[in-house]
């Protein structure tokens, strides 16, 4: 087999205004090779793949195809040259059939005045699906498929055209272990056919089992490219991804232990169908408990499920009283405040004013027989703006005109105004600039110092390491491990996140 690279990145750099996303990355993709690219969130993997997909143009360096410099005009251009990128987010049309989805790129290129030869397209799609081991009628509506099957359809679409380079970004995030194994066999088969495969994954055990070569990225740079995988184990990869020589110490961890008091929030056998399979946790006043885990670990539904926005079973006790399921108002009354992950769709009332956002969960207190007390609302809002040092022109400013950091401060203040015992934050600093991040951490520390119990759910390991007293890692809908004090290190957390289901017993997360 010809082993000269299909694609090579040569000293690729990419800058966005104010951010250097990639610098000096050189990487080769060889035919018949599975090349894993790993790194933490924000390490530059996606940017690199977007350059390969023709979505972004590099600021520096050259992309080479078959030894020739390549300038990709568009994703379509990349696709025509045999480069197929399957992103993690599904981009399928739910209203079309499976076959139409598979053939969509080809069908989309047929001019509108030409007829589509359905029978031929169907036969072709059936062939491709069969190649992926999917015994499914191409005429089936896509919406009848499971998420796992949809992920395979997404891959089938990539194979509908001649493919020389196939990028799979977390392709098995929705797949069961059995389905994943099936996907891995397909990847091995494609490798045997000479396709150059880029495999992006957080599941390091799978990466080791599957890849021929592993490239580790950190802070926009390629830190290590491992070609000889003999003797390489997960801890080595973790150390390379995290970059600091960690040992076992948590260099920045907060060490002061929480006060030895009764827990204010307790979860017992907490379950969300299909997401969380029995989690037990205790949260004490004055403590910042971090929750981490990979996508699909169940951590992303935890906040909303506790708060009552989705169905759940098991017991939630807050300050000794049992909380009913799916009653957000009861949760607020019992003393829970939720800061959701998505500000644009869920956190903020964007069309309303800052003041209205501050008081929206405490209308009863800010009204008299149903009539709003604007004087009181203004007073509360001004107080909170000062307390959180939010940069707003005044309480009347429309929420949508604020920066992400200031919006988050206002949403936080809404939570605080309801005088909670427990503050639950989901991705508290997503999409917020560095300065505002630091301010938000400082606020959380101050609040915890005042005796508030803080539950911080985050995908950012450094956030958990640096700003939580205790961290619970979740995997496969269960508690993987519970860390305190010096045990809290990115390395330990990452190991706990990528633990195999077989190694998980239903551990008591209660400390």
């Amino acid at each position: 087999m010809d082993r000269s690279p299909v694609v090579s990145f040569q000293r690729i750099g990419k800058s966005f205004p104010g951010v250097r996303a990639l610098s000096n990355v050189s990487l080769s993709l060889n035919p018949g090779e599975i090349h894993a690219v790993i790194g933490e969130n924000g390490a530059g993997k996606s940017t690199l793949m977007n350059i390969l997909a023709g979505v972004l143009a590099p600021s520096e360096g050259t992309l080479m195809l078959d030894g020739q410099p390549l300038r990709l005009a568009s994703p379509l251009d990349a696709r025509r040259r045999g480069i197929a990128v399957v992103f993690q987010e599904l981009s399928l049309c739910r209203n079309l059939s499976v076959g139409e989805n598979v053939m969509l790129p080809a069908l989309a290129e047929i001019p509108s005045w030409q007829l589509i030869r359905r029978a031929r397209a169907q036969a072709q799609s059936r062939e491709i699906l069969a190649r992926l081991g999917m015994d499914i009628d191409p005429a089936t509506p896509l919406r009848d498929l499971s998420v796992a099957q949809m992920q395979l359809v997404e891959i089938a679409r990539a194979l509908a055209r001649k493919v020389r380079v196939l990028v799979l970004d977390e392709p098995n995030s929705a797949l069961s272990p059995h389905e994943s194994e099936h996907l891995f066999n397909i990847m091995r088969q494609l490798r045997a056919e000479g396709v150059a495969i880029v495999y992006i994954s957080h599941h390091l055990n799978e990466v080791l089992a599957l890849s021929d070569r592993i490239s580790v990225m950190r802070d926009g740079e390629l830190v290590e490219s491992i070609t000889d995988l003999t003797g390489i184990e997960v801890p080595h990869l973790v150390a390379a991804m995290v970059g600091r020589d960690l040992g076992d110490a948590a260099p920045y961890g907060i060490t002061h232990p929480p006060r030895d008091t009764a827990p204010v929030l307790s979860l017992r056998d907490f379950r969300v169908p299909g997401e969380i399979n029995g989690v037990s946790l205790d949260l004490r006043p004055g403590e910042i408990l971090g929750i981490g885990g990979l996508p699909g670990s169940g951590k992303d539904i935890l906040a909303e499920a506790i708060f009552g926005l989705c169905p759940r079973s098991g017991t939630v006790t807050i300050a000794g009283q049992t909380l009913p399921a799916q009653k957000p108002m009861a949760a607020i009354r019992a003393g829970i405040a939720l800061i959701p992950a998505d500000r644009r769709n869920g956190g903020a009332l964007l069309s309303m004013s800052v003041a209205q956002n501050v008081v929206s969960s405490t209308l009863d207190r800010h009204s008299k027989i149903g009539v709003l007390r604007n004087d009181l609302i203004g007073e509360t809002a001004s107080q909170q703006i000062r307390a959180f040092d939010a940069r707003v022109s005044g309480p009347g400013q429309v929420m949508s005109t604020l920066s992400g950091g200031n919006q988050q401060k206002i949403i936080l203040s809404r939570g605080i105004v309801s005088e909670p015992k427990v503050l639950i934050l989901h991705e508290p600093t997503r999409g917020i600039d560095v300065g505002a991040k630091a301010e938000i951490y400082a606020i959380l520390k101050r609040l915890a110092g005042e005796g508030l119990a803080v539950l911080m759910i985050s995908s950012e390991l450094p956030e958990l390491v640096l700003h939580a007293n205790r961290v619970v890692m979740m995997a496969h809908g269960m508690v993987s491990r519970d860390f305190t004090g010096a045990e809290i290190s990115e390395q330990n957390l990452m190991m706990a996140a990528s633990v195999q289901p077989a190694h998980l017993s239903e551990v008591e997360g209660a400390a």
Partner: protein
Amino acid sequence: MTGSLAQPAAKAAKKRFLRFGGRETGVALALLVMCIALTLLNDRFLTTNNLLNIGRQVSLLGIMAVGMTFVLASGEVDLSVGSIYAFCGLVTGMVIVAGYGLFAPLVLGILAGIVIGIINGLLSTYGRLPSLIATLGMLSMVRGAALILTDGRPVTVNAKNGAAPDVLAQFTFLGQGSVGGIPMQLVFFALIALAGWFLLARTSFGFRVLAVGGSTKAARVSGISVERVKIAAFALMGGLAAFAGILSIAFLPSGQAGRTGLGLELDVIAATIVGGTSLAGGEGTIIGTILGVLIIGVLRNGLVLTGVSPFAQEFLIGLVIVVAVAIDKWTIRERRI
């Protein structure tokens, strides 16, 4: 709204004018231009009589548009209001003719409207039907119920059909009478608009309506019961549509299930949207709605006065709706980015 919060009064007033007033100023300006043009074109336009006439003509539309502002602001729509208007008016008329006095029939008619509104609300929230579909079905069902109830025959409230003379006098006064020269219908519209303004802009219910329409998820996170708020908005709409229907029968004083209020829902929605209420929810003011109602009323009146053919009238009213909403949408885009 809460624009005046904790700021020096003058500065706050200016801010509020700029922010919340922006949209209404545009509509108000358009209304002013129309009025000036009609004054110049026709000397009968700017007379007390004609203005009061316009006021009376738009009152029933206006009463319903106040309700529609709440429904649209909460992120839903109600297509059944024309049918509620007919059904409840006819029910009240029939019960009056049957000799149950005045008060009981009025309460019964309005209650019927509220109940239909609650059904609309239940279907659109817990029933998980899009309100467009739920109320489209109710449009047909309620009109059908009115046809069944009256057997398709007109209902006329007069002494010949058995209405007691004193009850008849009081009932027709509601629709035809006037106080100090101001038609009763206009008095009702003014009172309802004032109450609607207070409810939307100054109470926690109005706040919840706007929050729910702005972002369902954010409203839930704030502990607001999205379902209850929407059902209440539909109930309010149903009650107001019923009241408008009752006034209509008191004015004429008759109605027919196959004709009364046919297609009225579209006029109501159009007036509300011209007034700046967002079809997507989360935005809306009663002042804007009043202006929207007046624009349609003045336009209709002006076209009649200037002798434009009824066919061209229909065309021009549609044009004004499209232009008014288009200008609004284009300016929103500028404001948002």
